[in-house]
């Protein structure tokens, strides 16, 4: 199977980007025997802190050295200090003290990434876009999936992720504010693709491949109506060419589940922390659909 590079983006915060990346990544490894790399590009380092204990994370990424920050810092300084093998975290440490899911790898983020946006404009636009692709492109080949966890904005770091990606996945919470933001996001991606086009010879242009709904509650009408409005909105955006015909809303919606929230404090994906929970079940079903979609089995 060829590698699939997927950027998880949404400029709205709190929509479940990190939860989706961490839990789909872990489920791909645990139930589908895939090899997965999670690349944390968010200065908040939430994916890293979900999968690593804070003391271990702090030690690992001290001064940003063994983190994704180094990739961008190297580009700015014209240096080559980023060491993939040294930066890579293999598997997740369970309560036994030993690692599980050895085929789940993480390139952790560091808060130093915050400094990048202020300085990155020193580079040419084309150089910015290609930072991730040129540093990690060859490493990507050893994985089945590369999941890029982006910060909640559409600034340079996110642009580099979209440039490297085969497709974008948009995590979404079912409410009107997310809906209104979604149209802007879809339009922005079209704009970016146009800017990227000259630097992406022979490659498929990144586009929105799927939307994933999280924080869903089944009681009452509220969320069902909001998801319906999202589907209506997707149809309208397809009509105008803002959204590709192939973009789908991946089912099932991820229901709100306290065990998922709890699993962040245990630094484990929910499939390891609470495999019987509705959160783990929803992510397991969603991951099956994810595999169907991105491996062409739908």
């Amino acid at each position, binding site marked *: 199977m060829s590698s699939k590079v997927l950027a998880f983006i949404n400029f709205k915060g709190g929509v479940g980007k990190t939860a989706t990346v961490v839990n789909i990544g872990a489920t791909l490894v645990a139930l589908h025997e895939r090899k997965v790399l999670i690349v944390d590009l968010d200065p908040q380092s939430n994916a890293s802190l979900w999968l690593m204990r804070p003391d271990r994370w702090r030690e690992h990424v001290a001064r940003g050295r063994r983190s994704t920050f180094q990739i961008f810092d190297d580009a700015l300084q014209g240096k080559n200090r980023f060491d993939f093998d040294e930066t890579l975290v*293999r598997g997740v440490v369970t309560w036994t003290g030993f690692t599980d899911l050895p085929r789940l790898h993480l390139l952790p983020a560091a808060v130093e990434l915050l400094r990048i946006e202020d300085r990155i404009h020193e580079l040419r636009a084309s150089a910015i876009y290609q930072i991730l692709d040129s540093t990690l492109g060859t490493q990507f080949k050893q994985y089945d999936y590369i999941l890029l966890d982006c910060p909640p904005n559409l600034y340079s770091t996110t642009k580099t992720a979209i440039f490297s990606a085969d497709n974008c996945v948009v995590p979404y919470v079912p409410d009107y504010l997310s809906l209104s933001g979604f149209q802007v996001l879809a339009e922005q991606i079209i704009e970016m693709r146009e800017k990227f086009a000259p630097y992406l010879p022979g490659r498929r242009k990144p586009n929105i491949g799927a939307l994933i709904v999280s924080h869903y509650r089944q009681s009452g009408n509220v969320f069902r*109506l909001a998801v*319906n*409005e999202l589907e*209506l909105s997707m149809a*309208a955006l397809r009509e105008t060419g803002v959204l590709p015909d192939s973009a789908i809303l991946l089912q099932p919606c991820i229901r709100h589940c306290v065990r998922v929230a709890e699993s962040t404090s245990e630094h484990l994906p929910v*499939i390891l922390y609470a495999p019987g929970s509705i959160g783990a*079940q929803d992510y397991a*079903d969603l991951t*099956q659909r994810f595999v169907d979609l991105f491996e062409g089995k739908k």
Partner: protein
Amino acid sequence: MNYSDLASRLSQIGERLAKQANRLEGEILGRSAGKLASHLDRFEEQLESHLASRKSREVFLENLLRSPTSKKHLTIALLKKASREVCAKRLKSEDLAAAKREFIKLMHGAGKQDLAVEFLKEAFATAVRVESGGKDKALLQREFIRLGQLLDEEFAKEISSRSIAELRRVATVNGIRFTDKTDRQRLTTLVRRYAQRAAFNLPAARVPSSRT
């Protein structure tokens, strides 16, 4: 700690022990070495069994049967079908937990863990591929938007020609929850309200054409 770290630690201890073996003595150290040796026996046994079952995919089959997908989609009927189709044997257990154990034993005995994994993965995948609603859904969603864009009089006229069954279909597809007791008037109010909302919440309030 990961297993590579443990491996280097054991190598280092082994190397040190080999170099100093002739100089080691005393009851305290001896007792501790005895404990370590018996722990190592158990660990070696576990490791061998893990590696063997991993090679035969027994571990993956067990994990799959314990997985969230299995909790949601595995039934005793499916397990019995899997057993019949994969190794032409009937499961005797009527309780799911016991049937899982019996199934693993059976597949292991027949050396068909691989086929069992494939069968169950496909069955789970089929269970997950929920009905999308198809063409009808898209039509009823477009209809919903159109109803939301009508003026009050137009809407009243349009709705009066519809049966309650038609209204219910529009409501169901578009996420409106109602009960068997919901009467026509209430259902009409709900459809009107949420159709209007959907129409003005849509990007540029466009009605999707019949292209999709």
